[in-house]
């Protein structure tokens, strides 16, 4: 077995990797292209950094292309992102033209790769319009939506649907997010990579170094939220919850750790709001980390007692999965994919308000036996359900099903 696959077998189980090999065997030599909007920042890029080499290791000729554009392109696609998640945003015609032009230019640039690909997997709305420029495409095109599209702002969704409905299949992370489309709609949860720097085991000394670096007292309880500075992640609500909890647990510390993504122009404004809410409290650390600070995030997650993901809207919430992989219970917003990961009293608690979060912080920090029990449950839960091996198995299944005709029963090996 190849080295990389051997490593995954050691973590996820030999049978899991054997499934991948069986599924990949009839797909060997296939030309597969992923297209998304950024190589750095956000869960999609993180998954692709490991998914692509893993697919290559299995014999699938996989490449990863990125659509990029001027500031107005990102302004438009950020508008899509917010509108898809329900914000009533009218995107001016001029920005839509920039979006379409950027897709047209990218299509010209990527034509040699995309026109002969057997399978093209387009991630999120940014490159969704590429399909319009390949009327004679040879392969199957699949649109993968990583965003919560359960209640989209209709005019924007109607516009995007015009592109999406041309695909051969689409993938949503949760059934709540799936929209009616004229093709098979798969439900595939995203995943974390246990071999990624952000998730590998690290020495306690390294964790201590990071605590020292950010002046976090290792002898006092610490809660953490890792996410972009984005209003949907409610970082100000987390500070509110912390302040309420601190009245009951005075030694409590809070770390907010986030980075920017190159396709997120709103981050700075939200970061300023967070700094304003946190000011004067030396026990709140607001960290702006570079996109490649994976080991730092890993150490912060390991250093924390509880991880929060108090999102108001969430696609899936991979930071929840990452925290659970490090044996941490999670207090998460009752929304999106957090709902299928956070199971009350087993892996953490779902909350709807800062007050709810504060109560659960207090409850967990006063229940060491429950915390101990949760700490092994959460890791096994991730191992069984949310590792990249499961994610890839479902992608390969989808590809196999599309290339061999949609059947209820797919017999491999």
């Amino acid at each position: 077995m190849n080295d990389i696959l051997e490593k995954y077998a050691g973590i996820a189980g030999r049978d899991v990797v054997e499934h991948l090999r069986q599924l990949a065997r009839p797909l060997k030599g296939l030309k597969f292209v992923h297209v998304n909007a950024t190589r750095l920042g956000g869960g999609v890029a993180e998954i692709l950094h490991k998914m692509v080499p893993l697919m290559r290791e299995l014999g699938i000729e996989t490449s990863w292309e990125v659509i990029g554009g001027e500031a107005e392109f990102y302004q438009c696609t950020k508008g899509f992102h917010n509108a898809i998640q329900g914000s009533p945003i009218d995107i001016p015609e001029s920005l839509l033209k920039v979006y379409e032009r950027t897709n047209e230019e990218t299509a010209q640039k990527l034509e040699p790769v995309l026109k002969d690909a057997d399978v093209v997997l387009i991630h999120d709305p940014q490159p969704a319009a590429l399909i319009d420029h390949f009327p004679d495409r040879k392969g199957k095109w699949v649109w993968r939506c990583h965003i919560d599209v359960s209640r989209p702002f209709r005019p924007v969704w109607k516009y995007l649907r015009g592109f999406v409905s041309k695909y051969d299949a689409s993938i949503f992370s949760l059934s709540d997010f799936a929209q009616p489309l004229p093709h098979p709609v798969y439900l595939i949860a995203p995943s974390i990579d246990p071999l990624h720097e952000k998730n590998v085991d690290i020495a306690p000394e390294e964790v201590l170094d990071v605590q020292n670096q950010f002046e976090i007292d290792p002898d006092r309880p610490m809660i953490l939220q890792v996410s972009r500075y984005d209003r949907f992640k409610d970082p100000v609500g987390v500070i509110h919850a912390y302040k309420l909890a601190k009245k009951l647990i005075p030694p409590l510390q809070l770390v907010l750790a986030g980075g920017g993504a190159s396709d997120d122009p709103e981050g700075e404004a939200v970061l300023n709001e967070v700094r304003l809410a946190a000011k004067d409290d030396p026990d709140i650390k607001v960290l702006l980390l570079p996109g490649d600070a994976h080991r730092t995030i890993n150490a912060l997650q390991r250093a924390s007692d509880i991880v929060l993901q108090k999102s108001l809207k969430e696609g899936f919430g991979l930071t929840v999965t990452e925290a659970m992989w490090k044996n941490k219970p999670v207090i998460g917003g009752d929304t999106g994919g957090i709902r299928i990961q956070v199971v009350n009293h087993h892996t953490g608690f779902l909350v709807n308000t800062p007050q709810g979060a504060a109560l659960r912080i207090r409850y967990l920090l006063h229940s060491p036996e429950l915390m101990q029990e949760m700490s092994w449950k959460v890791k096994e839960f991730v191992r069984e359900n949310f590792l990249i091996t499961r994610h890839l198995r479902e992608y390969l299944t989808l590809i196999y099903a599309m290339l061999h005709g949609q059947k209820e029963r797919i017999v491999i090996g």
Partner: protein
Amino acid sequence: MAEDSPEVEPFAIKDCTLIALATAKRAQNLRELQEHLREIGTNSIYYHFWGGLLRPRFDNPEYHNDFAIWIAHSLHNKILAERLAILDPVEFESLEDLRNELIETINESLDETEFPIWAKRDDQFEFLGYQIVVFDTKTTVQEPVDFVNILPRISLGSIFYHFIDGRNRNPNAMDDFRNWLMGLDHRYTDLIRLIGEICPYFTPLKKLRQDLTDLFTNYFQSESVQQ
């Protein structure tokens, strides 16, 4: 295998997973649920009765099918949830019969309901379908006694495939274990009967694996004592 037994293929252990597909059918109240139930494919009904066994969850659930779970938690109709939760799909000859029973039971509840209860918009019932992917584990069983050592090691997907999915593939809705044993000889009549007594529906897969392991172990221990 007994000397006079007919030539029978070894038992090939398979593994499986389900991949879910959206149907774009959603219900926010009981009447919508019933209307969709009339037309939804049997693939979806199967998924909502059996698919939970392979999905992420912790507890032995209070209600065993997705319809009952949603009606209890989202419509807060515990009476109907209990009536639906007791439905055992194994007892129905076909999924169409199960569909009719579901519709009939919901009808009764609708007749008793003065005001329709609506679920929250983000808590609607989502009708899903599925595809099953079957893998070869490359493990085969030559003799029934070999199951004593093999069963504790096989995956929960294998248990699902052989003990639950097998009922869709074999004559008389028989699981794969009994179907294979019946092809051997008459020595295993008691074992076949005992396997048939294990309830596949109300038991989590881990417990099913343990129950089958215990059954095979006890059977062959007592057989060796008798010999």
